[in-house]
């Protein structure tokens, strides 16, 4: 229950952090909030030879609006995002989902960048970012690039990050008029990992749904969108019948892995029920 020995590096700038990451590849790991990494180290599931602690890198936790995007620094803490007026205004879906994320002391330390880099399939934020069509800004010592959230999560605990790369920011299109969004989750207890969670965003113009975005948590990989469900909604008035019909496709569209508290059959049912609830709530907010 104690971590294996490692070398500790504390860069004072992003450039130093990226240099350290390049120099220590592949043995170096970024230490952000540590709320997923340190438990795994304590359990000796992982034994990184070098930890690069980015907690004192200035400017990496900023939350700002840039043009039509909410820009969140990778080191922004869950607690700061949950309390942020900018996030509440421009991405209320994130705030609603954050109410389901862990507990106070974990949210005080855990970061959005760390959360998505860890890429737990049961985690809320990958689904939120996928639903929002967010972009993940990543950098290495050599280059910077942007990865759509829908392509960032490649499998359970696996991302599109290449060796020497780290997440530096998350860019989310700001919520637009006529748009409504909602998060629905089933967990054993408040703050536990989700058995299943659904993020839904709908845009309504002239009484018709012009855009729909649905993403699920708790399934085979993080940040899974359900295009079949989305397609079924566009062009409808989002009445109860349309929502029921679209939600019924969610149970077929997901590929759940079973867990101790929820087998795949139950997770399929949760996907359908939570999709219907999230869509109904999103519809009301779009009005």
């Amino acid at each position, binding site marked *: 229950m104690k971590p294996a020995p490692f070398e500790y590096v504390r860069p004072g700038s992003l450039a130093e952090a990226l240099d350290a990451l390049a120099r220590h590849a592949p043995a170096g790991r970024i230490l952000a909030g540590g709320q997923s990494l340190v438990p795994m180290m304590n359990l000796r599931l992982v034994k990184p030879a070098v930890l690069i602690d980015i907690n004192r890198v200035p400017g990496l936790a900023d939350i700002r609006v840039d043009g039509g995007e909410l820009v969140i620094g990778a080191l922004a803490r869950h607690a700061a995002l949950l309390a942020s007026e900018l996030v509440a205004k421009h991405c209320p879906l994130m705030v609603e989902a954050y109410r389901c994320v862990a507990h106070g002391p*974990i949210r005080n330390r855990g970061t959005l960048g760390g959360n998505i880099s860890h890429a737990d399939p049961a985690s809320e934020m990958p689904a939120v970012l996928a639903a929002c069509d967010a972009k993940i800004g990543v950098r290495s010592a050599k280059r910077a690039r942007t990865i759509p959230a829908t392509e960032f999560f490649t499998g359970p605990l696996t991302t599109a990050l290449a060796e020497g790369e780290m997440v530096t920011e998350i860019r989310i299109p700001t919520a637009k008029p006529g748009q409504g969004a909602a998060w629905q989750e089933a967990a054993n207890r*408040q703050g536990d990992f989700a058995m299943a969670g659904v993020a839904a965003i709908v845009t309504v113009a002239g009484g018709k749904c012009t855009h729909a975005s649905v993403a699920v948590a708790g399934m085979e990989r993080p940040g899974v969108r359900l295009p079949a469900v989305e397609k079924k909604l566009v062009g409808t008035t989002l009445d109860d019948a349309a929502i029921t019909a679209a939600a019924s496709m969610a149970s077929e569209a997901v590929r759940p892995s079973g867990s101790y508290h929820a087998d795949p059959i139950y997770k399929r049912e949760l996907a359908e029920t939570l999709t219907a609830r999230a869509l109904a709530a999103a519809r009301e907010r779009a009005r």
Partner: protein
Amino acid sequence: MALIPISLKVNGTRFERAVEPRRLLSDFLREDLGLKATHVGCEHGVCGTCTVLMDGEAVRSCLSFAVQADGCEVRTADGLAQGGKLSALQQAFWEKHGLQCGFCTPGMLMVATELLERNAKPTKAEIEEAVSSNLCRCTGYYNIVESVQRAAELMQEGAK
């Protein structure tokens, strides 16, 4: 592995030590500084009995390395009583039987300290939300919630 010098304040006292990078803050407090109020339970962030305040924020000391507390101000349950007198929060836990077996108590005291410093009159729901981060294996949350409610009363009275 090379030792790294750190300097931090714990309960108002400055400590300078050299630590292995892998030294958890929880072990540093208990073993290196001899401050045994902070308990160690699950050591992977679930139980919360190791919760301390780092620069005013409740954090799991088993999920922080001591090197990360370099330059920080840490508060633990050891520092709550002043001059041999229980703090209002500790007094309330005593009056309302909030301790029970006592194992979760240090963590409960620290999350309640953070809560009451931010919100002098928390609702029952806010108290429940705060203490829900920590496990009480006696499952005696009723008494713990009542203790925090009582602490808020005592602090209001004390402020008058």
